[in-house]
């Protein structure tokens, strides 16, 4: 019992990132499995990742939730922290990802009716958590007199990303099952609000971080993985746009008066441009990774999980874009990136096991 309490006390908000990094692989696998017959088996590897992510989610959610009641002072301390605080939305994001995974792979396990209803439950739980933490974090940042330029880092992108991910599940749900039902307008309105909040916060927060990177030192090595988070916002917008266009198609080409044929060419152009930005950012991550390695300042910390989910979001964006543009070019890219995502995941899992074994879990760094 004493050990369990110790675990709860030290169970930081960042653990949701591990679930996110595992859950998104089930989608990259599903997309890769569609490319050609030899890759079909990847669909079932994806189901394995889905089950693993679900198990992690349930196991992590218990101490994560208990901490709010058992150690509220630790929670307050973390919320005030300009790095750790931003990781709180990762657990609500897990609800949205669990919903997305259930929407895509749930029918294999539970059939369509149960899977689509379960994913809607996850959607609303995720929405409540994301908006709640979004407001808490922005309030904390605005009122915190201690925050300086040097605190800005790419983990600040997590709250905008959390809002951007809502419309992804919203659009997935509007596609097929809930299209044409009375729930569709509600999903649409919530998704659009979240898209607006996420997009503009991404621009505002991005400017603040950019400012720090130019006018102050770059963050210390243990924050280096957060650079990868910058790939996520545009990649997630691509995912949303692709899913939204499929939702319009599923609604007989007209959803809330938005005509499929009218917007599809524009969506393709915008999506490709946004995907291009994410690709550029990936190169930037490689450049900075090299710089940190050269400075011998890139220790393995739990924060390495920041290398997984944002990159996997980019892989998903690639896979969805391949379904409507430059297919012959993007499909091999998807397979390559999916392989790379698995390699990164294995490295991070191995590093995490070593990190846990070293006892670092009980010595949180603020």
């Amino acid at each position, binding site marked *: 019992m004493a050990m369990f309490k110790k675990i709860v006390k030290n169970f930081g908000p960042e653990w949701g990132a591990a679930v996110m990094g595992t859950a998104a692989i089930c989608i990259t696998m599903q997309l890769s499995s569609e490319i050609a017959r030899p890759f079909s088996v990847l669909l079932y590897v994806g189901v394995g990742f889905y089950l693993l992510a679900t198990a992690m989610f349930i196991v992590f959610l218990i101490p994560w939730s208990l901490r709010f009641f058992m150690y509220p002072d630790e929670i307050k301390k973390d919320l005030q922290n300009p790095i750790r605080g931003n990781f709180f939305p990762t657990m609500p994001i897990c609800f949205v990802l669990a919903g997305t995974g259930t929407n895509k792979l749930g029918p294999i396990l539970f059939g369509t009716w149960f899977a689509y209803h379960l994913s809607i439950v996850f959607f609303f739980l995720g929405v409540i958590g994301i908006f709640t933490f979004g407001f808490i974090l922005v309030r904390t940042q605005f009122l915190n007199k201690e925050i300086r330029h040097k605190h800005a880092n790419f983990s600040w992108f997590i709250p905008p990303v959390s809002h951007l991910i809502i419309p992804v599940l919203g659009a997935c749900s509007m596609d097929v099952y809930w299209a044409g039902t009375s729930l569709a307008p509600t999903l649409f309105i919530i998704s659009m609000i979240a898209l607006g909040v996420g997009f503009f916060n991404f621009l505002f927060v991005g400017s603040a971080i950019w400012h720090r990177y130019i006018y102050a030192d770059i963050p210390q090595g243990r924050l280096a993985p957060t650079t990868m988070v910058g790939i996520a916002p545009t990649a997630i917008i691509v995912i949303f746009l692709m899913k939204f266009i499929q939702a319009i198609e599923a609604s007989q080409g007209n959803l809330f008066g938005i005509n499929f044929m009218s917007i599809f060419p524009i969506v393709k152009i915008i999506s490709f441009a946004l995907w291009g930005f994410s690709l550029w950012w990936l190169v930037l991550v490689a450049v900075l990774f090299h710089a940190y390695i050269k400075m011998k300042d890139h220790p393995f910390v739990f924060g390495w999980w920041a290398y997984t989910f944002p990159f996997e979001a980019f892989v998903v964006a690639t896979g969805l874009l391949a379904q409507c543009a430059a297919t012959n070019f993007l499909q091999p890219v998807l397979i390559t990136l999916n392989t790379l995502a698995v390699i990164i995941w294995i490295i991070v899992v191995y590093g995490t096991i070593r990190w*846990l074994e070293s006892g670092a879990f009980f010595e949180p760094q603020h």
Partner: protein
Amino acid sequence: MKARFFVVFLIIIIIPFIIGIPFFMVKKAAASRQIIHFANDTRESGDGKTYKGITINWTFCPDWKYKPLLFPAEEYLVFMFHYTNNSEYAVQVMPSYTLVSPPNRRYSANEEIAMYIEDELENKLKAEDQTPITFEIPPNATKHYIVAFEKPHLLNHFYVDVDVFRDVTLRLYYNKENEEWSNDSNELVRKYKGRG
């Protein structure tokens, strides 16, 4: 690092994949989880439709039973559409499909189910399903697309709209008589192109 610590974690991580192996062996599982009926193939009956240089044929597999791993089997209405380009130029198509059942309830095609069953159908029909939502058909070539619809309960008749041309929709009518599905008629329905 202590080897025992590492092994314990490795086992925890691998368990979901190991649990899945008996289920996830694609071909074996697919065979035991699916019951397939073939009703008609317009390539054999000659009932396909040609419009603007594209011939559309389809294979209909009604009451396709797909059993999820943990729940009872559900039935689907599955089509494989065959698009043949008879012109001398490549064409880019972006078909979309809607099933309409009484009383005017509309169902969209379920991409996920189509993905789970595609191997089985591709093997049976010796045709490869297209995965992009938009694809090119070279001159004198045929491309195939699998479409799965959730089957409404107590269904006796329905129609499917195949939206592939700008100005018309191909509508396929199906009726159930004596537990057998028959393709009563097919027509090209003009689309409304006004501003209202």
